[in-house]
């Protein structure tokens, strides 16, 4: 009798273990319509995999707060399976070999491997480090230049033929300035990826390709900063670091560079005719791929990682990336989704939404990601703020000392 009971109990336990679905924790760093869409996708996935896999989405705070939650749980051995991490904050995780190399799963999955070429190649290359694929694009975007078409018309400029180069932006700004003292041609801010673009577009850089040398004092970067400082000195540009929205919606700004993800927000709240075009360039056409990707953590049991892999495939599958793009305004990561009738229809209704895809294929690059990048960026940002607020500051000297300081950080890393 006793033996029978024990057997039954053991059997039940065994059944529970085998029957219990694998739990996969996914941390997301966005809210509002973004998290809603993601959670809907998670629900759908859970229904499809009922009894096998349960994905649980957890809000981990903003990109920045996510880092606190991540490192705390990392050191305590309590990591999620998948996390959404901002592009420029992954360096130390890569160097610490914390992420799962996704090629291991792709190579065992010929069916999926065949569809890999359906991703926009620039997204795949942006996620490939040391020849290995580590992440999948989730909420990706590039910066567009938004223009106030009413201001353009009032100033006698052609809104259908917006500036393509920074020099043209400057000239248009001079014209816009004639509308009044409180009008400005272009608004500057502090956003990291926009600052990176400026340097690239003038032919400069921030860190060398091999990640060993800081290039903040390269001639292109110096030219870019001199250019913007000159615009500020003449009052045709304006610098606002804290509340871009307020200025951009005020109707007194001619042009501003912001994420393609802002399109929905600006469309809804701007009381003027809003245009969107390519980000300008001067020497080199170059724009950054911003936003965040999803990464899997290496240090997890194989069966759980397999389940997490299933979810990563699901989220980036054509119908789902399409759904994501339509709902959020972020970019679809697959070409087949981009070519789908729904998305093409969206473009025919609002051509502004397509700009980012054209820009991606033409000129988008991965942002700097090396381990000490946040510290190097902060040094750069602090110098940028000096240039933006002190009209007499010498760009060359400021960038030279910033380079020295940043190089020291890089060497010590």
């Amino acid at each position, binding site marked *: 009798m006793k033996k029978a009971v024990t057997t039954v109990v053991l059997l039940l336990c065994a059944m529970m273990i085998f029957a219990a679905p694998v739990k996969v924790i996914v941390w997301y760093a966005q809210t509002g319509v973004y998290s809603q869409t993601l959670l809907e996708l998670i629900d759908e996935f859970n229904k499809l995999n009922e009894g096998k896999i349960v994905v649980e989405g957890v809000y981990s705070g903003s990109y*920045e707060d996510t880092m606190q939650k991540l490192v705390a749980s*990392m050191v305590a051995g309590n990591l999620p399976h998948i996390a959404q991490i901002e592009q420029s904050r992954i360096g130390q995780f890569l160097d610490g070999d914390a992420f799962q190399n996704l090629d291991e799963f792709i190579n065992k999955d010929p069916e999926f491997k065949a569809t890999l070429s359906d991703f926009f190649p620039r997204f795949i290359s942006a996620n490939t480090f040391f020849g290995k694929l580590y992440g999948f694009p989730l909420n990706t975007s590039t910066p567009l230049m938004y223009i106030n078409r009413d201001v353009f018309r009032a100033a006698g400029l052609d809104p259908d033929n917006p500036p393509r180069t920074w020099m043209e932006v400057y000239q248009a700004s001079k014209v816009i300035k004639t509308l009044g003292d409180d009008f400005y041609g272009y608004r500057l801010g502090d956003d990291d990826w926009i600052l990176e673009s400026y340097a690239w577009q003038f032919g400069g850089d921030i860190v060398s390709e091999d990640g060993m040398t800081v290039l903040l004092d390269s001639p292109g970067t110096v030219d870019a900063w001199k250019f913007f400082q000159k615009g500020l000195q003449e009052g045709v540009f304006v610098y606002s670091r804290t509340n871009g929205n307020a200025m951009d919606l005020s109707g007194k700004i001619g042009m501003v560079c912001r994420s393609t993800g802002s399109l929905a927000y600006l469309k809804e709240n701007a009381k003027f005719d809003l245009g969107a075009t390519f980000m300008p360039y001067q020497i080199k056409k170059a724009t950054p791929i911003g936003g965040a990707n999803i990464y899997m953590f290496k240090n997890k049991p194989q069966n759980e990682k397999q389940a997490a892999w299933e979810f990563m495939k699901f989220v980036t599958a054509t119908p789902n990336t399409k759904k994501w793009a339509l709902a959020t305004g972020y970019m679809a990561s697959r070409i087949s989704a981009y070519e789908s009738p729904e998305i093409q229809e969206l473009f025919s209704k609002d051509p502004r939404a397509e700009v980012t895809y054209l820009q991606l294929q033409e000129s988008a690059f991965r942002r700097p990601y090396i381990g000490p990048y946040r510290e190097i960026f902060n040094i750069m940002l602090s110098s940028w703020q000096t240039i933006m607020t002190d009209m007499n500051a010498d760009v060359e000297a400021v960038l030279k000392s910033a380079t020295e300081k940043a190089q020291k950080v890089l060497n010590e890393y």
Partner: protein
Amino acid sequence: MPFMRRRTREALAGWIFISPALVTQVLFIYFPLGWSFFVSFFRWNLIRPMRYIGFDNYTSMFTSSDFWHSLSVTFVYVAVTVPVSIFIGLLLALLVNLPWLKGKGAFRTFFYVPVITSMAAAAVIWAWIFESNVGLLNYFLSWFGIKSINWLSDPNYALVAMMIIGIWKRIGYNMVLFLAGLQVIPRTYYEAADIDGATPFKKFLSITWPLLSPTTLFVTVMQFIASFRVFVSVSVMTRGGPAQSTQVITFYLYENAFAYLKFGYAAAISVFMFVLMIIFTLIQFRFSKKRVHYL
């Protein structure tokens, strides 16, 4: 020896009374602090294995210009916000304590509103108020013909803006504590002074201020700690900028820990802060021993 026994019993009771708090404080604050002390001798980003480097974190801290800069920004912030928020807190307490004032409860409540509002929400609203082009503050200043100020974008004003918020947040808190202290002072003292024909100012100097000194000590210590630890307003509104003009020490610590993942270095800063604050607080107690008057 009944006397001895009583003392032993008293000591035993004392330990029993304090032990729950002592245990929780040691477990949840001193253990973490000890951890920080330990980590401060290592190079560690919590991802790669930790590496012992002796006092290197301390030497690089003391030779870092950013560190000294943050410390000096913090000192300036403390030097302004501590006296000003204590002064305004005291002034408000005196005002809402006037015997003939109607609607005391409402005034007290409304002066207390900033204390209740979470700093994260308040900082967002303040960011609008300080906004240079569409902000309320510049709008009001324009009534008086003052030219618009780039509060948060100008390195000369950003710290001032932080101070305004810091003071705004704390005056209600200090007011409540001072109000409490004011209630303790016996009416008879003032009545005696009235007979002597003393002016209100004289009465304040000779009665209120000295008898308020125990409260003033408590308020000063708490205000000092709060000012020294200023963080949320900076992290929400200025992120230490522009051009490092608001980089207070806690924000510097935070960035090193969670943005640069230099946990060993951040731990060294936290150990330094702890020691510095203990020293300052001890000085305040010592200094006040001579000055504090009791009834």
